[in-house]
């Protein structure tokens, strides 16, 4: 191979790998990411059945029902609206009523949100940033 051919073969190889990676990235950004919503957005947002989303807000006071085995139900609220969530598992250490929470999962047929992960981030203010930003915008929560 001449010098030029060698260089071309390396460049072609590099472009092929980069092309594959770009394609993978675009497909994955479209399919493997989930949007963040607050309860008030749910009615207006066009959420497809089975689409994974992240739902954030405050845990509504008095809504947490424990003790049915491993299943827990609670409501996530943003003062305007609230959504019922069921979760099968262990809630994080920092999960409290009237504190911020982010859940991830899909909506069930009956309109309850079936979460497969519940995050109460490790932050002493007990307030995930996404939730805090929105609540501040709505004037519900001050620092």
């Amino acid at each position, binding site marked *: 191979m001449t*010098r030029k051919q060698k260089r071309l073969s*390396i460049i072609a190889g590099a472009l092929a790998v980069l092309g594959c990676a770009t394609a*993978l990235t675009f497909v994955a950004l479209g399919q*493997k990411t989930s949007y963040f919503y607050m309860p008030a957005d749910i009615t207006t947002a066009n959420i497809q059945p089975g689409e994974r989303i992240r739902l954030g807000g405050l845990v509504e006071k008095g809504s947490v029902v424990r003790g049915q085995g*491993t299943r827990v139900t609670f409501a996530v609220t943003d003062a305007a609206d609230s959504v019922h969530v069921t979760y099968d598992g*262990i809630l994080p250490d920092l999960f409290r009523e009237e504190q911020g929470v982010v859940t*991830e999962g899909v909506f069930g047929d009956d309109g309850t949100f079936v979460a497969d992960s519940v995050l109460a981030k490790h932050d*002493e203010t007990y307030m995930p940033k996404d939730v805090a930003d929105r609540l501040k915008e709505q004037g519900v929560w001050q620092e």
Partner: protein
Amino acid sequence: MVEAGHFALVLAFVLALVQASLPLIGARIGDARLMAAGNSAALAGFLMTAIAFAVLTAAYVQSDFSLLNVFENSHSQKPLLYKFTGTWGNHEGSMLLWVLILTGFGALVALFGRNLPATLRANVLAVQGMIGAAFFLFILLTSNPFARLDPAPIEGQDLNPILQDVGLAIHPPLLYLGYVGFSICFSFAIAALIEGRIDAAWARWVRPWTLMAWIFLTGGIAMGSFWAYYELGWGGFWFWDPVENASFMPWLAGTALLHSAIVMEKRSALKIWTILLSILTFSLSLLGTFLVRSGVLTSVHAFATDPTRGVFILTILTVFVGGALALFAWRAQALAPGGLFQPISREGALVLNNLFLSTATATVFVGTLYPLLLEALTGDKISVGAPFFEATFGPLMVPLLIAVPFGPLLAWKRGDLWAAAQRLVFAFAGALLVTLVVALFIDRASVFAALGLGLGVWLVLGALTDLAMKAGLGKVGFAAARRRLAGLPRAAFGTALAHLGLGLTTLGVISVMSLETEHIITMKPGETTDVAGYELRFDGLQPHQGANYTEDRGVFALMADDGRTITQIVSSKRLYTARQMPTTEAGIATRGLSQLYVSLGDPTDDGGVVVRIWWKPFVTLIWIGSIVMMAGGTLSLSDRRLRVGAPSPRKTAVTPVPAE
């Protein structure tokens, strides 16, 4: 005392300014005295930073709550070890550690760089001085660890309890040694661009630094992952959290740099690419510092969310990365192109390595920064998590891992792929066997598990094949092969060991991802449950009082089939009294290379407790593999050929000086 520390920090900043300017001018006009001033400034700067750091450490150990920083992050009841390590368990202290390591490395270049060309050393020290000056200014203006409180409170607010852990005490120093170690490669790259000259001696100097930084970064990441695994109680070892990615990107780029520096040293090729990689690797380290320290991400690592800090670090990032890339664009053409090679050759294999590693770095980069960009542009908030990275990073790693065993078996300049494949026939047979065994005999196993575990075995056996071939096994007698093996350079063992470690980590990751089992159940005292061929009995909750916390200990007995108790597992819910912060302490029992992981949940109404139980097959291989990789790197670093350093430009006899 405290004011002395503050004063030392200001002096260190001034010394960094001296170090950034005088040697640069000296190298420009050829003044030996100005160039030598850089050495003195680097040593004195390190001394001043060390004094400042010692003062802060002393304040922590003595619980001097007149310091705002100590008040916010310490407590008189805290165990002494965590008082000590608490020095860097907060934003201000960790930035001080950052510059301590930075000036420490600068001092090492000043001390051991005598056999470097004088202008190169002067320029390297000047660039180090610039980085140092920027970060000293950052600390003094936005993150002063020596700010006072008046009147001094009687008691501190305690360190975030989940940071009170031995693993986390050594995680930041290791990570920083890695991040900041790459600053030396960066400084060498910039110095080479300033001089417009680069040769194999340059690579011989940069390689040990890259290797050292890489070893520490590997250790830091592995330690962080292990900490998250046992401390957070979620059972995961890697969450693709932006902060984890922030340390993973420099690691990927650094691994690429490690390999391209070999090509440059041995074959004088890939010069421009190696320079670019040096710049990019440290840029990613700076980006990591920015992401973690600026508070744009909410995580356990974001100690403070002060916007001025974020803007300041972003400015540092822009100036250094932008400046370096501009200099690169301007000067890179001046560097003479290097040696030629066929696509199928050791060089070709290393180019392939670099291609895949840098592309993989790019996907992690996109996944980490896309949510920030999207939110800034449209206000939409999305989460990019494990599914994204498994769909992009994963497929890119597969061809790379398949190619790894071929690399060391190819000759420089012109390799023979077919001959290498023939030598790897045993490794291939072993991998195929494991794939078939997993696919046929282990139920629940998917195609992913079978192929993935086969890939891990392929890497492990490929690394062993490499050593066997270098020893000439099969060609010469067994005794002769053993002698040859003993006579191999340490770097050859280092390569094989590092690739072996990669194989072990791959086996661990794939095994946990595909074969782990998880149960969430409620258990009452005396009840048992079956897990992976064992029986687990819950023996009840016991209250317990710790040094600065109270806890409920869930006691479990792990029993074999025949009812014999093997071990006790204790998993607890802790409440740290000073901050009223609850944490979960996982109970872990190690069986061979696998682990049983028990996490305690809330009590139920009927007197039971929710328990989450994982069986994690071969999970320990993930970290054992990392340790083996580090051992491989260390072995390479100790190779005599690497320690000699750059030869003197003059042909006179020069005593070799250790490069580390």
